[in-house]
């Protein structure tokens, strides 16, 4: 029945796949954070046009499946003269799609800020830029470390879908190994355990970080 020995010889391939998954995840986390920050600021701004565009953006990208977006990006980008490989297509589409979720999370953090703090800063003559840079963003980001963490964990799990556009990350590599060894059950069980362990470790680290950042705040921890 269960036979793990066939898989052992493929450890280097697993490691290679893991490295690609890690690279895509890190680049897309940074990318989606930048996109999300812009979306959140547009969502809370008083400018009606920014408001409208960011609302449409969030609504669209949260209601269209990622696999549809990635196929659109993979087949569509070359049509408009952008030739990038599967790796960068994946990073780009992940950043754009997950940016919508990041934006909503940061926005929730901004809306949760005590109005008194903002008024206090205003009465001290803070400019709008300084108000956001020194008061609003630091507070809202520290409070939303944990919700942002679960968005990013979801991002890491979503990278598995990039195997459908020929990227040999963890899942793509496993597909090859499963068909080479004729041991799909063992390979995919191992993969489920691996992703599970990975998200478990990361969410533990996020919780610790969240507690540390919010140690001076009574609520929000």
């Amino acid at each position, binding site marked *: *029945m*269960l036979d793990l020995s066939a898989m052992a010889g493929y450890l280097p391939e697993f490691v290679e796949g893991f490295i690609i998954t890690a690279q895509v995840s890190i680049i897309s986390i940074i990318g989606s954070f930048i996109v999300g920050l812009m979306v959140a600021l547009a969502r809370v701004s008083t400018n009606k046009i920014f408001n409208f565009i960011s609302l449409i953006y969030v609504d*669209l990208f949260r*209601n*269209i*499946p*990622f*696999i*549809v*977006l990635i*196929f*659109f990006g993979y*087949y*569509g980008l070359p*049509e*408009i003269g952008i030739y990038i490989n599967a790796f960068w297509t994946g990073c780009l589409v992940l950043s754009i799609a997950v940016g919508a979720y990041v934006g909503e999370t940061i926005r929730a953090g901004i809306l949760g800020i005590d109005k008194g703090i903002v008024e206090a800063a205003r009465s001290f003559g803070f400019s709008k830029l300084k108000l956001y840079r020194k008061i609003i963003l630091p507070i809202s980001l520290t409070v939303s470390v944990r919700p942002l963490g679960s968005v990013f*964990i979801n991002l890491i*799990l*979503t990278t*598995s*879908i990039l*195997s*459908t556009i020929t990227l040999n990350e963890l*899942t793509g590599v*496993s*597909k090859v190994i*499963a068909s080479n060894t*004729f*041991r*799909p*059950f*063992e*390979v*995919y*069980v191992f*993969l*489920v*355990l691996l*992703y*599970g362990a990975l*998200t*478990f470790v990361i969410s533990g680290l996020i919780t610790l970080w969240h507690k540390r950042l919010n140690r001076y705040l009574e609520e929000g921890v």
Partner: protein
Amino acid sequence: MGYNNEGFSIYDLQLLIEGLGVSVWIFLVSTIIGLLLGCFIGLVRFYRIPILAQVLMVLSEFLKNSPVLVQLFLVYFGIPALFAIDISPFQAAVITLSGNTASFVAIIVISSIEAIDKRQLDAARSFAFSEVQIMKCVIFPQSLSLAMPLLVSLAINQLQVTSLISVIGVVDITRVGDIINQRTFEPFIVWPIIGLTYFILAKVIATVGSLLEEKYSAYRMVNKL
């Protein structure tokens, strides 16, 4: 004989409608099975039934924390290879999505039961309510109103997850898009239409969901939650 294989034809629309049917059908079946299974897991964990509760907890944690795509591969390629049985893509899709939905429903069930004031249960017990009566008359109506908004957003999320079954060969909306895209090479027409189809479906679920939410909102209204 000139047979033009490029460009769109009226049959593409027929294909899209068939794919829509498959997506909606799998969504409905897996959501209903997932709801029942999730309630079962939630109750087993709430009443702390030994061994079964722990086993189900570990299982649902791994279902929540691994990609659905990998779970699909495990069911579709892994289980037939290990047990020497045949599983059709459709069966694999329903099994995987039901299990995945169930693991999220279980969390919602537990948290919405535990949100109820424990003194109510004590009061009911002191009136000699049986455990079944407590569940039916005290816990269930209140939990349902707390759980409804969470279940609706889960349903919208699970609709998007159904798109992954195209990878194991179920001809759903996404697979139809892939087929038409491969033939016409018109990604800028095909994928926006497919995306819009999902968008409209999600809006339909959200509308139905908000009606349900309103219907079961009595408890939250009273407690101003």
